[in-house]
């Protein structure tokens, strides 16, 4: 009998919750996250009108958390796409061609793994300046090393197989072999690492925005909301708790989803963890 995959379903549900919140934000709240500030209602505790309370400028924390999900998901998904493209093309080509290119990519990957990616992203942000585009670039350039490693090792094990060899005798070019024979056959592990990567990127975005290098106030990023709420932590803890909870739920969701996918796609892992 098939074992119930709790990670997959719980992770999927949490991610779905965040996605629904982000996509339908305008339907789920009637307020604007930036302009509906009213000092009359500043630092109100959660009640029937303001579900998550209000912040120091009287903005609805619930509204801002919903709109914040849009930024977090955009950053998480787009930067992970950039990471995947970089990691896959480097990893597959390195293992396929070998030689000096493989050595170079390996060196680069190891260097990237040695530098804490948040510090590296911080440095890139410092050069590019704050804002969404630079955030996407910074996070997209700093978290591809695991994807690259997995792509490389998958290629090494796949390239000796009959159908990859056969493709060469049938006149396939190198790029075509990589795209049609190698890439589709490693999609399982890549999907897993990418899902985990989205979680990491969401966390990194929050951290950068918290440090003032990501999304700038007044735009509602969860990280920058925490910065604003830091000073109110004693008098209005809800302004910090709810964005923090949102980060927690999102990252947990993606991590569980990634683990669940791995159990689903990799039968060896499944039997080991079961």
């Amino acid at each position, binding site marked *: 009998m098939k074992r119930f995959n709790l990670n997959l379903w719980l992770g999927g549900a949490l991610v779905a919750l965040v996605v629904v919140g982000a996509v339908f934000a305008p339907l789920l709240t009637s307020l604007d996250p930036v302009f509906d500030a009213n000092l009359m209602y500043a630092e109100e505790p959660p009640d029937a009108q303001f579900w998550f309370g209000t912040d120091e400028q009287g903005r609805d924390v619930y509204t801002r958390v919903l709109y914040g999900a849009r930024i977090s998901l955009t950053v998480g998904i787009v930067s992970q796409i950039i990471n995947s493209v970089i990691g896959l093309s480097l990893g597959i080509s390195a293992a396929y061609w070998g030689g000096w290119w493989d050595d170079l990519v390996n060196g680069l990957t190891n260097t990237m793994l040695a530098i804490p990616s948040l510090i590296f992203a911080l440095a890139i942000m410092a050069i590019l300046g704050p804002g969404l585009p630079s955030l996407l670039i910074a996070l997209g350039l700093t978290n591809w090393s695991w994807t690259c490693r997995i792509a490389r090792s998958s290629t090494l094990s796949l390239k000796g*197989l*009959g*159908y990859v*060899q*056969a*493709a*060469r*005798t*049938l*006149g*396939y*070019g190198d790029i*075509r072999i990589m795209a*049609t*024979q190698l890439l*589709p*056959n490693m999609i399982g592990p890549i999907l897993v690492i990418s899902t985990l990567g989205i979680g990491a990127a969401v966390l990194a975005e929050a951290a950068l925005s918290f440090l003032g290098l990501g999304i700038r106030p007044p735009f509602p990023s969860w990280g920058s909301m925490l910065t604003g709420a830091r000073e109110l932590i004693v008098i209005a803890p809800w302004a910090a708790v709810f964005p923090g909870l949102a980060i927690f739920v999102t990252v947990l969701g993606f991590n569980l989803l990634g683990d669940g996918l791995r159990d689903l796609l990799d039968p060896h892992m499944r039997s080991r963890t079961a």
Partner: protein
Amino acid sequence: MTETPLLDLRNLHVGIPGQGASVDIVKDVGFTILPGEAFGLVGESGSGKSLTALSLIRLLKKPLAVSSGEILFKGDDLRGLSDKAMRRLRGDRIAMIFQEPMTALNPLKTVGRQIAEMFVLHRGMGWGEAQKLAIDALASVHVPAPEERVRAYPFQMSGGMRQRVMIAIALACDPDLLIADEPTTALDVTVQDEVLKLIAELCSARGTAVLLISHDLGVIANMCQRVGVMYQGRLVEERDTYDLFANPRHPYTRGLLGALPRLGSRHGAAGRQRLVDIDALIADKESLSQEFCFEPRNPVRDPRLRAGGGA
């Protein structure tokens, strides 16, 4: 025979280039294949059959490389072709099928798509048109219900069926030469015969020449007009198949034929014939570089063989 050969292989040497004494693994191999002819290459494991075939289509794996010789295909030396021209030739003019039908197909693509890809790749067709031709190609290799089977994935097919699909892919573009590297070794004995008959039937109908590599003399005898015997990287004998079986010249060929069990040979304690075995001796670097490499195993001590191993 005045016909110009389709493939003319001259003095092919394959080795590992580099510093120091290089040892050629394939030495001075040469043979010709006429258009539409079936040529067999036999020999034990490691005798250089597959390396010879791979060097024809320039897919030797590093560090192996052709060190000298000419590979004339329709008069052009393939060694001088650009990578791009060579890629266009592969699968289109020269196709290859392998030993392992279980792994030679991409598990994630339907067999129809894998056949269709050949038309897209080499004929520049759109996918729709190519898919239709894939059905015909599948029908031509006698896969039942080809309209449905084009949508099947490799794991839904048996080994014999997959080898048929491989043949359909290889012959999709009507190549001039089909290289079949032990195409039936991994199959059931009953299926082996069917697949061989299919290759013979399709190739003679289309005028495709075949280079059949095998260590099974029976397979070669059934399929090929001429046969070359390889031993330790050399082509020791190249003859008409009938002649070779009737009158093997090289002691190694005699050894090979003597090692075949024969149906109808007399049984019973007194009359039973013993199969001849060839003294096992693994080809090492030293004996490879010797002028006369069969000597340590030679039961005959034939002085004629001393000059380079040719018969």
